[in-house]
């Protein structure tokens, strides 16, 4: 077993050599490092998956606003629309967008969610994994495999870039969540190792430079609505990768670009609310009203 896997190239060669999937290789290493059985490890992942499902359900059933009063009642609008009108892109699109919004809104009303990788990006991975499971007719074990795949991809990115808006902007939070979801979805649809890693790379490549400029410093505007957007972004990446389209820049180099972009990004656009949406006229007015 490979004890040290720090890059996507190492992950890919380990899987190719041993004939294991990403989730198989990852669960063996994690069980070994944490002194537990593979079954124990999968049970922890299962517990988190269950918490994700509960967050979606709670979010779908609530209309409560956040403490600031800025967000909280948008998911219900989406649900209402889909009662009478089908989405152009079908049922799965409807599930993914509503689940992502439901989870994000549950987060800002201080409900229970799973930070994946962060609280502000908590709606993306659950919406994709759980949102497509009905359509694909997959059992719980397959969802656990997908969540392990997502976690392993996020872990390798985090070896190079801290997954925090204050360090590298939103590309490192919602951007990485979208890349993790693209990998998970490609795993769920039977993609090869190469296809999974390409989906990850394609997703992140198209989100480079995404800033973190939250209005009033709160995890609400634009974070909440960004979750459904980037959940759908993951589906696009997975579709492209499954058709054999590859990222011309290899996965590890895409992460190098993510790291460099994060470093070059102005500190005013990294969770400090000193520029961008946070310093628009309306945002400044809100700030005066809410943070006095």
């Amino acid at each position, binding site marked *: 077993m490979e*004890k*040290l896997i*720090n890059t996507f190239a190492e992950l890919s060669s380990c899987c190719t050599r041993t004939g294991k999937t990403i989730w198989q290789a*990852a669960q063996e290493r*994690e069980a070994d*490092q*944490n002194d537990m059985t593979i079954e124990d490890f999968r049970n*922890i*992942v299962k*517990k*988190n998956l269950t*918490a994700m499902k509960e967050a979606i359900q709670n979010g779908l059933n609530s209309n409560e606003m*956040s*403490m*600031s009063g800025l967000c909280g009642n948008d998911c219900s609008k989406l649900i209402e629309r889909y009662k009478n009108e089908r989405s152009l892109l079908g049922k799965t699109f409807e599930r993914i967008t509503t689940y992502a919004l439901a989870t994000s809104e*549950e*987060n*800002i*009303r*201080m*409900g*229970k*969610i*799973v*930070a*994946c*990788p*962060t*609280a*502000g990006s*908590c709606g993306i*991975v659950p919406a994709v994994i759980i949102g497509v499971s009905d359509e694909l007719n997959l059992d719980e074990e397959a969802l656990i495999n997908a*969540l*392990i795949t*997502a*976690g*392993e991809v*996020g*872990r390798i990115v*985090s*070896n190079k870039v*801290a*997954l*925090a808006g*204050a*360090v590298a902007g939103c590309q490192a939070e919602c951007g990485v969540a979208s890349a*993790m979801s693209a990998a998970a979805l490609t795993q769920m649809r039977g993609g090869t190792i190469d296809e999974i890693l390409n989906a990850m790379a394609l997703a992140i490549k198209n989100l480079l430079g995404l800033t973190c400029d939250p209005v*009033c*410093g*709160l*995890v*609400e505007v634009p974070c909440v609505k960004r979750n459904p957007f980037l959940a759908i972004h993951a589906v696009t990446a997975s579709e492209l990768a499954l058709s054999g389209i590859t990222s011309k820049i290899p996965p590890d180099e895409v992460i190098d670009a993510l790291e460099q972009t994060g470093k070059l990004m102005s500190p005013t656009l990294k969770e400090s609310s000193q520029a961008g949406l946070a310093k628009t006229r309306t945002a400044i007015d809100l700030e005066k009203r*809410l*943070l006095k």
Partner: protein
Amino acid sequence: MKQSSLLDIISPVMVGPSSSHTAGAVRLGLLARNIYNEKPSKVTFKLYNSYALTGKGHGTDKGVLAGLLGLSVDDTRIKDIFNLDISKQFEYEFEYLEDFNRHPNAVDFIIEGKHSMKISGDSIGAGEVVIRKINDFTVKCTGKYNTLLLVYKDVPNMISRVTNSIHVNIASLHCDRYAKGEDASMCVCLDGDIDKKVIDFLGLIEDVYMIRYIKKLES
């Protein structure tokens, strides 16, 4: 490269909205609770910088209080903590401060009771926290390890007497003192768990004034 766990990426299960401002605040409260280890009569929470500025919208004030009361990061009662009976155990107040010498997400717990204690910590991102000071001693307590904390008189052989009694692997060891021969502190992070008997035994060592065993926080 230090090996990370993928479980850190797909957790914690927590109440929102922010891992640093909500979950981190609860974890700092939990560590302060275990360090103080007595029933307070009054607590002043000093929230600094970003914790002061955006703390209310993120429930940071509720988080530090809930943690000090022993609630875990995924406890849905955190939201209503100010209205619950459990929060009436002691008097408390909040102060909101700016100090650019402090971390953006810093908090001081000024705890009064049978003994008084000041505990300072930072929320350093993604829910990770560090307690950096207890009264005037620097310490490093993250909640990631079972941690043994001692305050004692700075005399020769104190470190060896402590480490000789511990039979699990020591992940890190940090000592500090006011001055030679004066009060000193020791912070020992452990890979495993130690028996209460060992802690009681260490507490009997001459010149040890205070000993605490702070259990690892659940992730």
